[in-house]
């Protein structure tokens, strides 16, 4: 045993020497760096930003994030080629794995596809989840899927350059300001529609906070009236259970995407009236997903369709009825939804 001691000592010595050398190296680097910092501190213009003379106001910098994020690169041929590969490969695989989507109602768009006088189309789905956008990029049929822009929240998707670039490249996301009414976004979207790009706009303006839908904002209706482009109502069922707002990680489930018949603005339509029609059409599709074509029509005619926004009452009863609602939809196929209120017997 005693024979092992010197060997241990020698290993300890060599470690000490290595540490000493490391510390000296770090000190050297620090010395050089401090010289650089000192130089930087001493250096003035043009190595540093100029100081502003007193009495002079500098015009604010052109913003480049949020609603001002320039996404035009994402519609260039090279970016479109990359996106085709991304959508056909990883995006579709991810959507299929997580959501197992069932897409219905594409036959309702067969006439629209043949019309040569219609260019861009506005798809107006309800919105429950971040997965809605990749879902829509894979569900929208030809000929619109290749020229499809998705209106995305500027404050969420375009708050950082990297995030915005990825969103624009992978999903052709386009920033929309949710907080303020911006002419810039609407003018650019109008220009895109005029150039035969189609747009996915979530009229609810954001993901559902509680599982029920929200009132429709008039963006889609406004754009349609201004451009004459048709609005295709879309109902997405089940994504709230896959990756709803507030969920930390996605859970696999079943999802249905139902396309409705295209709506054109009529002569006497104003934005509010047309927006109501769009909301009613999506509500009808929602009811169709829960029941069937005939029952949903009967209920709509009798004014008994289940509102997208859920029951009027608030609080726990609202959550309680959401459980029953989800059970009837695509999410109910996955498993029994857990009650959010304890069963007190």
């Amino acid at each position, binding site marked *: 045993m005693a024979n092992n001691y010197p060997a241990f000592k020698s290993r300890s010595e060599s470690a000490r020497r290595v540490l000493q050398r490391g510390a000296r190296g770090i000190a050297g680097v620090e010395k050089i760096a401090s010289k650089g910092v000192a130089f930087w501190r001493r250096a003035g213009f043009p190595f540093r930003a100029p100081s502003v003379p007193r009495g002079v106001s500098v015009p604010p910098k052109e913003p480049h994030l949020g609603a001002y994020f320039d996404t035009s690169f994402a519609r260039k041929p090279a970016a479109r080629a990359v996106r085709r590969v991304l959508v056909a490969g990883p995006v579709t695989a991810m959507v299929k794995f997580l959501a197992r989507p069932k897409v219905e109602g594409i*036959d*309702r768009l067969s006439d629209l596809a043949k019309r040569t006088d219609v260019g861009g189309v506005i798809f107006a789905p309800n919105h429950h989840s971040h997965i809605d956008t990749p879902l829509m990029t894979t569900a929208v049929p030809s000929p619109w899927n290749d020229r499809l822009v998705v209106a995305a929240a500027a404050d969420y998707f375009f708050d950082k350059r990297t995030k915005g670039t990825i969103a624009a490249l992978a999903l052709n996301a386009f920033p929309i300001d949710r907080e303020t009414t911006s002419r810039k976004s609407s003018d650019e979207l109008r220009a895109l529609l005029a150039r035969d790009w189609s747009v996915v706009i979530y009229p609810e303006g954001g993901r559902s906070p509680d599982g029920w839908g929200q009132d429709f904002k008039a963006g889609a209706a406004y754009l349609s009236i201004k451009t004459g482009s048709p609005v295709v109502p879309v109902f997405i069922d089940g994504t709230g259970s896959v990756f709803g707002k507030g969920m930390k990680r996605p859970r696999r489930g079943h999802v249905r995407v139902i396309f409705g018949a295209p709506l054109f603005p009529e002569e006497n339509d104003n934005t509010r009236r047309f927006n109501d029609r769009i909301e009613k059409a999506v509500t009808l599709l929602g009811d169709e997903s829960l029941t069937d*074509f*005939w029952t949903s029509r*009967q209920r*709509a005619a009798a004014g008994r369709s289940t509102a997208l926004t859920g029951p009027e009452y608030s609080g726990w009863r609202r959550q309680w009825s959401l459980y029953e609602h989800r059970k009837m939809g695509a999410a109910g196929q996955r498993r029994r939804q857990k009650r959010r209120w304890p069963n007190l017997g």
Partner: protein
Amino acid sequence: MPRPGFVLDVDRSTPPILFWRGENYSLEKLPADRSRVIYAPEPEAPIDDIDSAIRHALLNPIEMDPLPTLLFPGMKLTIAFDDISLPLPKMTRPDIRQRVIESVLDLAAEAGVDDVHIIAALALHRRMTEDELRHMLGDRVYDAFAPRGMLYQHDAEDPDNMALLGETPQGEEVEINKRAAESDLLVYVNINLVAMDGGWKSTATGLSSYRSLRHHHNTHTMENSRSFMDQHKSELHKSNWRMGEIMKKHGPKIFQIETTVNNDTFPSAFDFLGKREWEWNARDRAKFVASSAALSRTPARMRRNIFQSIEAPHQMTSIQAGEVEAVHKVTTANVYRQQLVEVQGQTDILTMGIPFICPYNVNSIMNPILVMCTGLGYFFNLYRNKPLVREGGVIIMTHPTTNEFHPVHHPSYIDFFEQVLTETTVPSELEARFEKKFAEDEWYKHLYRTGNAYHGVHPFYMWYWGSHALQHCGKVIIVGGDAPTIRRLGFTPASTFNDALEIASDVVGRSPTITHFHTPPIMIADVK
């Protein structure tokens, strides 16, 4: 602007002409200076906004009140629709019937109608499968109505669900589906592929029973119809119209919706089949050579699957709704506008290539009896005024005509071929001797009601369809078919087209005139 139909006089520079041979095709050289080829008009421009056109037709019917005013809460509404025999080949989704029925249901829902039944008016045809119904009606209508038993197929052998409405002055019993008869409104959704379809034939045939059908599906009406495509000279239609009078008096109120389609028959992979041969470009020629060579080396079953999977790009060209007869007048005019081809004079020999499909072998096998029916019953009768072939002339058909039957769809055809045609091929004789036995056979009834079989009497009707041609022609020759099978049908087999012409010369002499009926696409020869 689509080009109208065309009659080509064959000369030495005319290329070989396409002849269908079931699930394949060949090119045949027709003798110069005494042959002609009849080509169908090009497809008419379709309606652009179909949904609006449907809505307009329902709200502005002919000689009837708008559909919404006929609908009220608590009423019994029945929607009947044509079965899988129309159109041919089946059309790409969404089918017209789906679109029309969805529009009718929208109006019914708005009016608060709860009691709605949707019935496939298939008369004695086979029951359709779920897939076939879904193709026709779409998933939305199927899923909403079929599980609740509100979408079903007419059963002509269910005595409890048939209603006798009365008899015509000629003693023809009018019996139709009881639910339809007792409805406050019967909406009939039709596709008029040829001029024969629609009108009172929709309800008086589609929703009726053997008891009723036998009055117009018999050798007498078939032999005295000149032709089925001309309602005013068709005994078949006269009988249906007499029954219509009874239905007007004692039956339900009928809201007839008739649609026409253009003759855009083949999808892009097979589009050369609808073109005139001298207009085939290099791609068309390559497609023909490659596909015919490949098909000749393909097993029959796979070949059949390939052709039966064809979905035609038919497009709707018109829709009209309202009172049955008024609507049908407009529809017939629209069909004629698409299909009529003016032809000068008759011919000694009429040639026709029999394609892979007829109304009775959709997703099934074109058996020898259906070959006869397609050639002599349908193609021969696609005329107005007088037949294309002169009396005593010869018909030459090209088809493999194998002794092959679909055991599920056509069980009674097998027995008809083995037991009846071995005894006689004369329509009136086999009608008198065998029809009743087959029509009342309990096993065939069972297969018709519970399986996917055509009714026991159906092969007789197929044979009757050809009775006018059998009576009219001196000889029928089938080229490239199975000789014993063709002889069983009472026809003459020939190995090649030239052999057939040689055989025909015994009847029509050495220098006969020849006319080739280049169909599909479907057309009607207006023979002057």
